[in-house]
């Protein structure tokens, strides 16, 4: 049996209404995205899919996604004012709705973000109760909840990479909860996604980044922090 519910699942969480899947979950998806991008974007194209495509406006998910992109947390009262705040902070945005992407989860959002010359594309799912899954990052399958500490390493597809990365993390005594690799055929790139129970030191991150076969490393600590 899984972890027992907390008293604060019964009296809580403290959140911005109206619903945990349309606000809290959506804010979390956006917060994961800005960690992946490395900051608040200059421009965002946001596509709501399936059930979200119809309901996002009525439930205020458009405000929630912008609030998250502006780095507000799930209980921040500023979320309600996200349209004005986005203007103030120079975040340009476009919303789209696509109704029939049946391969996606009913509550799926795709974000195409630009910051300077950096671009990223993330697909996130709001699973209910504020729980999320980041399904894709830049075309790689990712599948992480962003609830623990997550490492995303894009690297050349060399043999022994998985064992090497896990041994480095093991030296930190960080417990690996899940680890997955996905490949995008053409340019022999692999994307490793590692979820850990605790955080790792900046020095370890620097070391992994310095490896010649590592192209990009993204570290996402608990997104609610």
């Amino acid at each position, binding site marked *: 049996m899984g972890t027992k519910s907390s008293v604060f699942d019964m*009296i809580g969480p403290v959140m911005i*209404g109206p619903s945990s899947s349309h606000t809290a979950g959506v804010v979390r998806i956006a917060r994961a995205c800005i960690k992946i991008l490395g900051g608040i974007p200059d421009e965002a194209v946001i596509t709501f899919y399936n059930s979200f495509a119809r309901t996002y406006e009525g439930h205020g998910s458009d405000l929630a996604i912008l609030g998250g992109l502006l780095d507000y947390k799930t209980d921040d009262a500023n979320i309600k004012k996200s349209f004005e705040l986005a203007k103030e902070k120079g975040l340009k945005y476009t919303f789209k709705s696509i109704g029939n992407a049946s391969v996606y989860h009913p509550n799926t959002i795709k974000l195409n973000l630009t910051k300077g010359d950096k671009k990223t594309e993330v697909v996130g799912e709001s699973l209910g109760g504020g729980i999320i899954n980041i399904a894709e990052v830049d075309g790689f399958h990712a599948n992480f909840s962003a609830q623990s500490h997550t490492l995303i390493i894009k690297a050349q597809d060399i043999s022994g990479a998985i064992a090497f990365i896990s041994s480095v993390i093991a030296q930190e005594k960080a417990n690996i909860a899940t680890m997955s690799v996905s490949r995008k055929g053409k340019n022999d790139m692999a994307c490793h996604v590692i979820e850990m129970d605790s955080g790792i030191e900046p020095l370890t991150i620097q070391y992994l980044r310095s490896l010649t076969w590592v192209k990009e490393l993204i570290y996402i600590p608990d997104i609610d922090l």
Partner: protein
Amino acid sequence: MSYLFESFAGWQSYCQEKDLNLYESVIEYEVTQRGKTEESIWNNLDKAYTVMKEAVETGLKEEMTSRSGMINNGAKKVYNHPVSVLSPEFQRLISRALAAKEVNSCMGRVVAAPTAGASGILPGTLYTLQEIHNLSDKKILEGLLVGAGIALIIEQKASLAGAVGGCQAETGSAAAMAAGAMVYCLGGTVSQIFNAVAITIQCMLGLICDPVAGLVEIPCVVRNASAAAIANSSAQIALADVSAVIPVDECIDAMGEIGANMETKYKETALGGLAATITGQEISKRVLIQDIEILPDEDLPE
């Protein structure tokens, strides 16, 4: 080992054996199961109650219009109306439950207790109870712990989610938490507290979840007011030792059984009940986004 909140009968005998107050066993559970310190539990409860009171006050003070327009400053109108149907206290109770829930519908900050849809019930009832009986904050926080214990059991035996058990699971459970907490705060015995839960569940059984246009507005907001009223009537009945006859655990079983057999169209899908009425469908057409792109097959993500 702490008590794991599997049944009301088990909770009662555990507390009797260990000579614990109901709220103490809830703290013990949170400490042993979730590794929290007692101090952090009281701090978080205090924060939750503060957010609840703020939600009540915000809803009675600030502009509360939802994006669909279906919610439009109702709580303030009720609060300020010159005619009190029953008593000024009752008028305040109802308007406070509406107020906190309107804040939720209008993207303000609330405590989901147990869910966002039911976020007006504990604030409305406890705020008003504290005011009328001059209770200390500590007493109210203890009451919240009793409410949390009640919800933990309902979650295990039935459900707290409208999508699983209908609205009885959301506003019904919140009303049961409120009734139990109120009887506790007024010095009721454990039997009276659980009897209040049983009576409340009996009053809320069968309630479907049928939100218009799928938004947590109609009927959710008025149901927070009616659930607050039912919690008060149940508490009044239970304090006088009028028995629910059917024991509380069996009442929860009935709620689970009804939820399991409830048709999907009555579980948050917005396909039945009020959502399916002519007006409900018109509203749905107006507020839901209609210009949705439908991709040709070859452009669909693989």
